[in-house]
């Protein structure tokens, strides 16, 4: 299993992961298709995303079979990015709150859709007013 010999593994594992990725992607799409909203949407989308990303990196990119020196080089530095994401979301929520508070912006406006603009297409059965809880 050492890397000098190249990453050679039975084909079966690739087929299994391949199918799994299809299933997980279908689940992700189903979340949108069945219009799941709110915390449930965030939780499910992020869960399927993390699983897909994990399987691609671990199996398709062979990281699970690499030596620790390389694994840490690959996975270590990007952890810093979590700090950036954390700081930017704290900052973002703050600015958004300040704009609503001091500039009188309405945080609950609803976006227009192509159907609104072009008229026709699909009508009232699409309820999207309660979306946009970010």
């Amino acid at each position, binding site marked *: 299993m050492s890397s000098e010999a190249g990453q*050679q593994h039975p084909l079966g594992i690739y087929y299994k992961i391949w199918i799994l*990725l299809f299933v997980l992607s279908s689940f*992700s799409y189903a979340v949108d298709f069945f219009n799941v909203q709110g915390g449930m949407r965030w939780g499910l989308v992020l869960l399927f995303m993390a699983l897909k990303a994990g399987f*691609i990196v671990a199996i398709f990119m062979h990281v699970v079979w690499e030596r620790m*020196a390389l694994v840490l080089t690959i996975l270590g530095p990007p952890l810093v990015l979590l700090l950036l994401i954390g700081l930017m979301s704290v900052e973002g*929520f703050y600015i958004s709150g300040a704009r609503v508070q001091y500039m009188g912006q309405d945080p609950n406006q609803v976006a227009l*859709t192509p159907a609104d*603009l072009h008229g026709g297409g699909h009508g009232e059965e699409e309820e999207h007013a309660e979306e*946009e809880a970010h």
Partner: protein
Amino acid sequence: MSEAAISGSNSTLVDDWSADKQAYHVPWGKAMMWIFLVSDTFIFTCFLTGYLHVRLTTTDPWPLQSEIFALSFGGDPIPLILIAIMTFILITSSGTMALAVNFGYRRDKKKTFWFMVATAAFGASFVGMQAFEWSKLILEEGVRPWGNPFGAPQFGSVFFMITGFHGLHVTAGVIYLLTVAFKVKKGHYDKKGYEIVEIAGLYWHFVDLVWVFIFAFFYLL
């Protein structure tokens, strides 16, 4: 004295970098590809974090992706269907790439070649669909990097920036894969070994990996 100090520091620099040590027990090309991919991770994460920030701070409503990217095949528009198809195509191409790497190490040149060509073909069709999506948004919906008729103007800039940069990666990957595939076919790697197929595969899987995040954050959430 200072002369000696300078030459001394030079020689330690040279010694350190030319010392007979190896940290990564993989072909150098693979280590370099990984370092490139880590740096690319930083670029894409910066784009996505920028998106996070403008999406949080804008008080205009964010356009509803599932309606904007809906597509009608005769009947009612199906939400987000084009993006779902693009996602499945990219996963399929990741699978064919994994098989190409495997057959490369088995020294099965013919299968390696054809699986790489198939991967490139899926990649090219992905870019084609992206071109269709872009032209639909630009020409029919009037989305621009500085504004759009639906809501927050940042939607356009984020969309063009992130999907554009990703599409550029896919396009480069198609060219890269085809180059390596034809070299495999000609037998360029018979002596050198087939690590190059795995290295090209790493790049391709990374492109798929980035799409996983774009699909989740930009299209679904």
